[in-house]
């Protein structure tokens, strides 16, 4: 399969009905790997479904679902090695799971419990884990982009065979950070993948109101970088393009921009009402005809790798696994109030020491 930048149509491997439109052998994916990819898709969706319920139950304050975007996240994270670095945004928990974040940690993050690697300090956008090289995103759209470039610059300076991937949405491409980051990475040939999940909306603003270019991928041209437009609901296509860009970056051939053309099923977040801005029928069309999980299942069925029995078994298995994960998260305590001052600096400053005494008095400890 030849992977070319700046195609007019999104690069795809599977038709909507799951039949391959390209030679599969060139992907070099084994049968076991196909099954493992499917498991990730199913798991990511199930984690999200479970997580969102926590908000409905009033047990969590915020949730941004990835539903509809699972193929973009799984397909782009699978080519990463343990040493590679990942910068997410507020909608990249699927990729973080593939990178090694445990579902229990994710739930703890959503609930704000101490099992959360970031100890409940962040709105649930992704907790980060240093040992997995996942950097926790702030809430400021776009900021992670220049940071990721800094990490990629450092990887090149240190002559390591690692790369950095950074996730952001279509809306983020209007921020200066996107342009600054793309320019820096191109100038230094940094081993970086700019992965744009174009879910066609930034909260309520549609892509046509966000930018005047037809695609986001073509913006790469302005920086002397390759831009790839890929069908973000086709996990094999996303994998193939991401692998291509990862190999390219790893072998010293610089950064790439990937635009994964996809669709968000849920509201922007648990605080949004998407019925105010979505045209009638659009969501249903994407859900019924282009769903990334169903599409890949159809593919597996056509390859005789999957059937209803296996499906039921997998769903039951994932459900049980997540029940255990959630229980683990719930068992973990809310962080101690006295820790609220910690980690502002490496050590408490004299002023924070003073505030610590005030807080202790207030809490009666």
């Amino acid at each position: 399969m030849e992977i070319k930048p700046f195609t007019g149509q999104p690069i795809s491997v599977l038709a909507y009905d799951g039949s391959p439109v390209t030679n599969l052998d060139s992907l070099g994916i084994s049968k076991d790997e196909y099954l493992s990819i499917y498991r990730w898709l199913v798991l990511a969706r199930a984690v999200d479904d479970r997580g969102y319920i926590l908000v409905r139950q009033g047990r969590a304050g915020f949730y941004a679902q990835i539903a509809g975007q699972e193929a973009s996240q799984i397909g782009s994270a699978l080519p990463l090695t343990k040493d590679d670095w990942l910068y997410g945004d507020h909608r990249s928990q699927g990729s973080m799971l593939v990178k090694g974040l445990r579902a229990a940690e994710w739930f703890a993050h959503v609930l704000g419990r101490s099992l959360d690697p970031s100890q409940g300090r962040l709105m649930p956008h992704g907790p980060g884990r240093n040992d997995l090289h996942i950097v926790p995103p702030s809430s400021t759209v776009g900021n992670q982009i220049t940071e990721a470039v800094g990490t990629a610059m450092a990887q090149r300076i240190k002559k390591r065979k690692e790369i950095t991937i950074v996730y952001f949405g279509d809306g983020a491409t209007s921020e200066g950070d996107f342009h600054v980051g793309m320019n820096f990475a191109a100038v230094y040939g940094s081993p970086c993948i700019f992965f744009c999940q174009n879910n066609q909306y930034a909260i309520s603003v549609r892509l046509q109101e966000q930018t005047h270019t037809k695609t986001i991928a073509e913006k790469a041209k302005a920086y002397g970088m390759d831009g790839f437009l890929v069908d973000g609901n086709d996990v094999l296509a996303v994998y193939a393009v991401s692998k291509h860009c990862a190999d390219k970056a790893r072998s010293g051939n610089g950064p790439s921009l990937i635009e994964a053309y996809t669709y968000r099923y849920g509201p922007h977040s648990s605080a949004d009402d998407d019925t105010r801005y979505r045209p009638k029928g659009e969501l249903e069309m994407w859900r019924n005809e282009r769903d990334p999980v169903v599409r890949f299942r159809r593919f597996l069925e056509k390859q005789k790798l999957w059937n209803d029995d296996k499906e039921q078994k997998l769903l039951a298995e994932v459900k049980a696994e997540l029940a255990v994960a959630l229980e683990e998260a719930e068992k973990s305590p809310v962080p101690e109030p006295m820790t609220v001052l910690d980690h502002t600096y490496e050590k408490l400053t004299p002023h924070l020491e003073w505030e610590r005494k005030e807080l202790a008095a207030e809490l009666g400890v």
Partner: protein
Amino acid sequence: MATAEVTKTQTQSTMVQALRSALLEEMERDENVVLLGEDIGPRGGVFLITEGLIDRFGKDRVIDTPLAEAGIIGAAVGMACYGLRPVAEIQFIDFIFPGFDLLVSEAAKMRYRSAGQFACPMVVRSPYGGGVRGGGYHSQSPEAYFVATPGLKVVAPSNPYDAKGLLIASIRDNDPVVFMEPKKIYRAVKNEVPAGTYEIPIGKAAITREGKHVSVITYGAMVHVALEAAEIMQKERVEVEILDLRTLQPYDSEAILETVGKTGHVVVLQEAPRIGGFAGEIAAFIAEEAIGYLEGPIVRVAGWDTPFPYALEKAYMPNAQRVCRAIKKSINF
């Protein structure tokens, strides 16, 4: 006599030389220290602080960047998270604002938001302050924004010796430091700067001049305005003590209490506009913690609450006369 003079000037360094030797020594000591900024390579930076360093350490460690402060500070954050110790130069602190978001939303909060998993051991150095005919965009003193951002440390040296020791300490510090260099005295003030490595601890103030009647608490280039005022007041038999804070966040509260306890009269001097300025924090701290020592009002001396002017900067900048008036207001209460 001629020889003696030459020897004397040789042991005296400017702040430019002191800062350069701090960078050079730290880069030799630790290969994770890298520099990035605009024109810092062959040009040596517009104030020549990084002159010659690219020849010594190469392009990978002295990185000339595209003209984008958000990129410089953002990249520094990503480098620091990865384990490097970047020292970013912002050409003038007036131009830090395109990168302000990265400093206050990212560098300052990375440790906290990751519960200590990630840190940003980085320094953002930048020339600040007026008195160089720089107009409104080459003269400002925006320290209040940074001091008001938990997670950042803020340092402002007043002389070459301190500048070197403080920069070395800042580079070795595991938290992000905004290092404000008083450009008016880059070359105007000299003192003895040893060749070897030494640190001046962050968070420790210094008494620049001892006195028993009134304390002037200040930092950066204003220390020299305070010295001038002290000379004038001396003639009127008022002995002025000058406390040079050196670090603004975290500031040395003990040293402040000590000098206030000694004199009972306080003037807080800053170049930045008064309202919402750092001097207000110091005044409030003293009012809260040392009201019993005070024998007069705490008086602030600051720049006017306007943007920084070009042709009229003399009328704008705090000067010795303004400080003397404030001292009198405090002691004649």
